[in-house]
């Protein structure tokens, strides 16, 4: 076993060596006309929005940022936002076959539902107000085809965005309505009974008015799981068959007219739970989870006078959860309902030479934060609690350029809450360009996350409410060195240290099963990254992350000490491409033992043109059918499921038509 593992590590090392051995570049012509067909933002290189609310080229952004474009999504055949995030240095994913959980620098807590990460859709906050969850699986209302790019900003983002931006900010930027009328249709079939359809319709209504509608629908039977000899399984032998089903739909509408944009989204997902989560009867097809979420938003963005750029938005959002769990034949229903609305106003002022000043204010009214739990028949109510809340934040940021070589980015935000003491979060970034191709960034920032309504008030069996929870606060230091060795090669090294105070964890003591504030947690990490555009249009990205997440009692569960990622995209014939993704995850501690380190290889061939406007792509996930497990949660560990088996080899085929 150890030998095989070592062999794989060697193979991966060799691959990386093969990749960085240089191939001489040669200039040849792309026509100006082809370039003029690109969007302006594409021309200017990758532009980012999430780091500081105004776009800056990557090298100048006051954070460590990774951008995954729609092109990458296509070339690597990503299915969900979780797949996109898995490809980013320093992030790892775990799944319990209901939700996907994001670990940042090795910090991932059972039951946190990705709350320490802020999820934005087109710059608009998306974490719900009951669990503060960031939905990254198919419960996200954005179909993967509608994503133009995903920006992940590592580290503290609270100085701009407020709560949740503790370890990172994910900004999902969706496709803008196209200038030409068009219809895009996509169908996908795959292993485990996957069937999916996507439709997008773009139509200009007037000179500067464009409409876009999209809808996606899908279902999957899911995989059969085997946990040999497990008593808590339908047949007592560890077989979980035909109970991993998923059904989902996503709708969006967007109307853009001059400086105005009206946008609405809705997503719904029903997932069966194959494993006996929360101690439910194992293998009962009645164990299922439904998530529903969406929003309506109106945005304005326009210049004002010579020096001002003004942005305003109004939004309303909702989230609904319904968990059906069968206990000894009795159906128990767990529900959460969240509603919120709010607005934001900010302005960029460029009237002072050498400065770019941003000031803003935002407000969110939590209209409803409701949690209920009851047995359906015979009816028995266990919980019905409702909260409301108000959050108001003001922020200011200055991008101060002393010279071509040196700039300082300062940010400060102050948030007031109806339920907690006010929180002030600063960030300072010193950006130094000692030579034209090198950038050094030194960043300090504080960030926080408020405890969720769930963590404070949920008190059904196995949980005890703790209304006294206070926000957890992180201090974070980053040192980033970026070197553009040439126009086609970029290398980066980034070191990070973060310390969390009042770290919120669920007590493992069965006598007081509450969420509590622990004194502190720490994580440190080092990322080495390489991004190479080969002559010939191929591109390679490689990264190695070494990290450790711990408190005074030792390393955390589900905290891999290393992560290695390799992405290769190679042009094949006639515009088609081969995407190879190799992902390595180090060994992780579980409640009782360990989940072994593993490598996964995913392969996608995309853009195979059948005729004009009709193309085919195909993916194999986990090509070598490698067996691996993710650390489970305390309730699964209690019935003997210490680690959850991950997905095996899966095939997918997509057919796309454009009219």
């Amino acid at each position, binding site marked *: 076993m150890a030998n095989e593992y070592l062999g794989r590590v060697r193979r991966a090392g060799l691959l990386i060596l093969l990749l960085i051995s240089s191939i001489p570049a040669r200039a040849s012509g792309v026509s100006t006309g082809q370039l003029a067909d690109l969007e302006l933002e594409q021309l200017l290189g990758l532009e980012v929005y999430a780091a500081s609310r105004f776009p800056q080229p990557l090298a100048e952004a006051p954070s460590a940022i990774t951008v995954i474009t729609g092109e990458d999504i296509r070339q690597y055949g990503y299915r969900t936002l979780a797949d996109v995030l898995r490809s980013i240095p320093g992030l790892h994913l775990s799944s319990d076959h209901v939700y996907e959980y994001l670990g940042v620098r090795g910090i991932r807590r059972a039951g946190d539902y990705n709350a320490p990460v802020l999820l934005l859709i087109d710059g608009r906050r998306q974490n719900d107000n009951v669990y503060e969850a960031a939905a990254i699986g198919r419960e996200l209302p954005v179909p993967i085809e509608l994503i133009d790019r995903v920006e992940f900003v590592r580290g503290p983002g609270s100085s701009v965005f407020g709560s949740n931006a503790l370890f990172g900010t994910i900004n999902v930027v969706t496709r803008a309505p196209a200038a030409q009328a068009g219809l895009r249709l996509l169908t996908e079939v795959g292993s485990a009974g996957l069937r999916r359809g996507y439709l997008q319709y773009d139509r200009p209504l007037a*000179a500067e008015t464009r409409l876009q509608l999209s809808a996606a629908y899908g279902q999957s039977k899911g995989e059969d799981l085997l946990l040999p000899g497990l008593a808590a399984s339908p047949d007592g032998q560890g077989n979980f068959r035909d109970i991993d089903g998923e059904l989902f739909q996503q709708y969006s509408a967007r109307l853009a007219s001059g400086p105005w944009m009206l946008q609405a989204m809705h997503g719904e997902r029903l997932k069966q739970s194959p494993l006996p989560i929360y101690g439910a009867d194992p293998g009962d097809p009645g164990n299922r989870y439904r998530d529903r979420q969406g929003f309506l938003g109106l945005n304005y963005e326009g210049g004002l006078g*010579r020096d001002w*750029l003004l942005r305003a938005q109004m939004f309303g959002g909702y989230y609904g959860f319904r968990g059906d769990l069968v206990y000894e034949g009795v159906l128990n229903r767990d529900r959460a309902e969240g509603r919120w609305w709010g607005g934001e106003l900010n302005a960029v002022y460029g009237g002072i030479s050498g400065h770019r000043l941003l000031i803003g204010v935002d407000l969110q009214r939590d209209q409803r934060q409701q949690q209920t739990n009851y047995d359906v028949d015979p009816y028995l109510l266990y919980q019905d609690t409702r909260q409301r809340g108000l959050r108001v934040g003001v922020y200011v940021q200055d991008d101060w350029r002393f010279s*071509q070589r040196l700039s300082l980015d300062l940010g400060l935000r102050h948030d007031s809450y109806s339920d907690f003491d006010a929180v002030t979060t600063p960030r300072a970034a010193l950006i130094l360009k000692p030579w034209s191709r090198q950038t050094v960034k030194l960043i300090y920032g504080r960030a926080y996350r408020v405890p969720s309504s769930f963590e404070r008030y949920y008190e059904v069996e196995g949980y005890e409410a703790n209304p006294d929870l206070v926000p957890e606060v992180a201090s974070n230091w980053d040192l980033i060195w970026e070197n553009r060795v040439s126009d086609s090669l970029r290398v980066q090294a980034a070191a990070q240290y973060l310390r969390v105070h009042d770290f919120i964890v669920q007590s493992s003591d069965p006598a007081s099963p509450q969420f509590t504030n622990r004194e502190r947690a720490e994580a440190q990490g080092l990322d080495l990254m390489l991004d190479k555009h080969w002559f*010939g249009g191929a591109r390679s990205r490689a990264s190695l992350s070494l990290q450790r997440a711990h408190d005074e009692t030792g390393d955390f569960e589900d905290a891999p000490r290393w992560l290695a990622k390799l992405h290769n995209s190679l042009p094949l014939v006639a515009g088609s491409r081969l995407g*190879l993704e190799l992902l390595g995850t180090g060994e992780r501690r579980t409640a009782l033992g360990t989940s072994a380190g593993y490598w996964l290889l995913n392969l996608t061939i995309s853009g195979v043109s059948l005729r004009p406007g009709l193309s085919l792509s195909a993916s194999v996930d986990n090509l070598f059918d490698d067996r691996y497990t993710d650390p489970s949660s305390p309730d699964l560990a209690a019935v003997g499921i210490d680690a959850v088996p991950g997905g095996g080899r899966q095939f997918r085929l997509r057919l796309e038509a454009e009219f």
Partner: protein
Amino acid sequence: MSRLLLLIGMMGLLPLLRAAPVLDDQVKAAVIYKVMLFTHWQSPREPGAELVLCVIGRDEVAAALPDLEGRSVGERRLVVRNVNSPSALAECDAAYFAGTERERLSESPELAHAEGLMTVADCGLGLCASGAVLSLAVEDGRPVFALDRGRAERRGLAFSAQVLRLARPVPSP
């Protein structure tokens, strides 16, 4: 072992491929076109079917501009025309000052108040106070541009927010 061979085989495809790193100058030419798409001429010189982009002097960006001829800018068709002197600029909606001609931007009296003329210049490496409405440059291997909004306003030009948020501030002279 077979897996290793398969992977090496896949990587081995790399050198067989061919195509193209992109030249800065072509990208700059494309940026000029894109910015024009988001520019509003408040009182068009001649509300006709053509939008005239004039080129004074020679450089690599100027060489790439004629490739854009025939594209549409709003409802108008883009025409690229070479001119020899600033006095000919009355016939132009936009003008690119190539190479050393850039100095004329600060010298020519004809240009001081040219109504409706979008002037464009290339600063090379790093943005400069070129005296043009639109300045182009390369910084850190990426194209960047700056818009002089004061100058634009005096000439009756306005930009949409989409382009303003991507523009850099004009450095002080």
